[in-house]
């Protein structure tokens, strides 16, 4: 017990050789990681095993093999205590039709074990903090997507848990809403000492909020490390639209270390540039070869591409 308590102070999540099988299909394979209090991004494409990992962390699914602790609670044994220590924000709407915002959050508080009076008071506090005070008496059906996301965060925060599991918190949000949500998560993690496990497929979300990252691929932990390290591995890419004879221009780009990823033959190129590349160099090269550069758009490597490249590097 003393060991767990001591362990608890250092690590929020501690998984050792954790695997999960669904019949013959292995969803998680030998996952071992320790998450210190902080903000961690859980990245992976569909089918990577993120959902299974979240189910296991929430104590809703027992691991097939391996052991783990979340905030000192044993996974697969202390499901109720575990969920009490976690605030979970699901990706799906997960709303109760007919309820008003304040009732929805207060109900979550009661389900976590708060008395009705405490839950109601806390619901108003959290909704005010999340800037939903004007909408708290509206029915859930009348909420916009952004408000629904904040409401789901409110119900996860109502009992002030030390750990938040967030499943695609920016899903369906417009850029402004997304930025607001990410700012909120960053504040919660940085200023209010909430540990956050942010499950997403958007690298930008992780970059903005988290200080470390886990990448899952086909049930295996592909990469574990700092966000800065991951971002260093991401390639800067551009989409170019050119007019004129581009043969010499393309050759010059190659000589400068630019990788041409795609050329549609009608003047549209997708290129990956070396790390010290400056955008102005495109215009200089185009001018040198009498090519008109009609369009230049940053088109950074997306997560899917990064996965494949990291996977290729790892293997």
């Amino acid at each position: 017990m003393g060991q767990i308590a001591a362990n608890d102070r250092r690590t929020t999540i501690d998984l050792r050789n954790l695997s999960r099988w669904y019949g013959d299909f292995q969803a998680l394979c030998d996952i071992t990681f320790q998450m210190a209090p902080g903000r961690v991004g859980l990245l992976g494409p569909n089918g990577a095993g993120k959902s299974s990992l979240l189910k296991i962390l929430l104590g809703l699914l027992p691991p097939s093999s391996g052991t783990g602790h979340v905030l000192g609670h044993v996974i697969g044994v202390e499901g109720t205590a575990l969920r009490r220590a976690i605030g979970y924000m699901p990706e799906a709407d997960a709303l109760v039709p007919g309820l008003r915002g304040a009732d929805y959050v207060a109900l979550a508080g009661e389900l976590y074990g708060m008395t009705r009076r405490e839950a109601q008071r806390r619901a108003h506090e959290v909704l005010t903090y999340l800037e939903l005070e004007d909408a708290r008496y509206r029915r859930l059906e009348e909420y916009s997507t952004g408000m629904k996301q904040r409401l789901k965060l409110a119900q996860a925060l109502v009992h002030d848990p030390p750990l938040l599991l967030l499943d695609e918190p920016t899903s369906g949000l417009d850029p402004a809403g997304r930025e607001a949500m990410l700012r909120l998560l960053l504040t919660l993690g940085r200023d209010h000492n909430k540990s956050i496990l942010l499950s997403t497929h958007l690298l930008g979300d992780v970059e903005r909020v988290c200080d470390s990252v886990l990448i899952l691929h086909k049930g295996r932990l592909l990469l574990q490390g700092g966000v800065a390290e991951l971002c260093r591995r991401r390639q800067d890419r551009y989409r170019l639209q050119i007019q004129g004879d581009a043969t010499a221009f393309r050759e010059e780009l190659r000589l400068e270390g630019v990788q041409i990823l795609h050329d549609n033959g009608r003047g549209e190129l997708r290129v990956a540039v070396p790390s010290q590349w400056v955008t102005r160099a495109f215009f200089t090269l185009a001018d040198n070869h009498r090519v008109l550069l009609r369009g230049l758009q940053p088109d950074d490597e997306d997560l899917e591409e990064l996965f494949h490249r990291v996977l290729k590097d790892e293997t």
Partner: protein
Amino acid sequence: MGESLNRAATPELLHYRPWRGEFRTPAASVWPIARVALMSIFQKWMFWIIYILGLLIFLLFFFGQYLLSWAETQAGESDVQLGGWGRMNPRHLIALFRGFLKLDGSAESYRGFFAYQGYIVMIVLALAGSILIGNDLRFGSLPYYLSKPLSRWHYLLGKGLAVAVFINLMTTLPAVVLFAQWGVLESWEYLFERFDLLLGILGYGLVLTVTLTVLLLATATWLRRTVPLIMMWTTLFFFCRLLSAAMVDGLRFSPRWRLIDLWNSTSLIGAACLGLDLETIRPGNQPPWYEAALALGGVSLLCLTYLIHRIRGVEIVR
């Protein structure tokens, strides 16, 4: 856009406040689940209409008992003329009415009340099923509940409690009121001498509550939407009744075929709770009550097994 501007204009005055307090046991979450489910039902005006319809039957019994009692005190000794059929003593006439309408505080009176009220309850439940539990599956509310520190048993108990409250508000509670009214109108001793009837009423209510609750939760979890749910309940309680009647009364099959009629089975057990003989039950040729209890127990067990498999926490993450 307006929302974003509003957010931008809001001063940074609102801070997150930590919460420190004691959590209650997971069992404490059962009533909030039931309360919210009941609230969802009573938000619909249609349920108020049906509930008031259900109350009409209660009021018929309530004022029927009251009027006959009052008439008894007003009746004189002399006979009254009954149209062209001759004369009759008013007390005999009232006794005749009481016997015919079963408004006499007897076990049959309460059985009749449960039977009539049961039809309304079934209609209400068929309509309420999708709101109570079907919507949780359709609109993804299940992850909301199951990600909290409670088990699926607590969730099912909460939903079941909502159905139970509704059923008992329409059947057991009014029946107990009728029992108390008869004691007040006729004699206080009735309340003590016929205490077995009160237990019978509670027993009948319990049978209806358990059977209908489990059946509703299972069918609503399976079908989710109102129209298929109504069709299923019609099949269970109307076509199965017709089928069993055709097999037993028409084709002269074993009375055990009546067990496929679940409503008949609840009536049989209810009648046994009220201490009524099998011979007083119409239609005749009925199986014994314990076979009905076994049949209902089997169906309830099947429904519970289905529910345990269907209401799973692993649905939580998509």
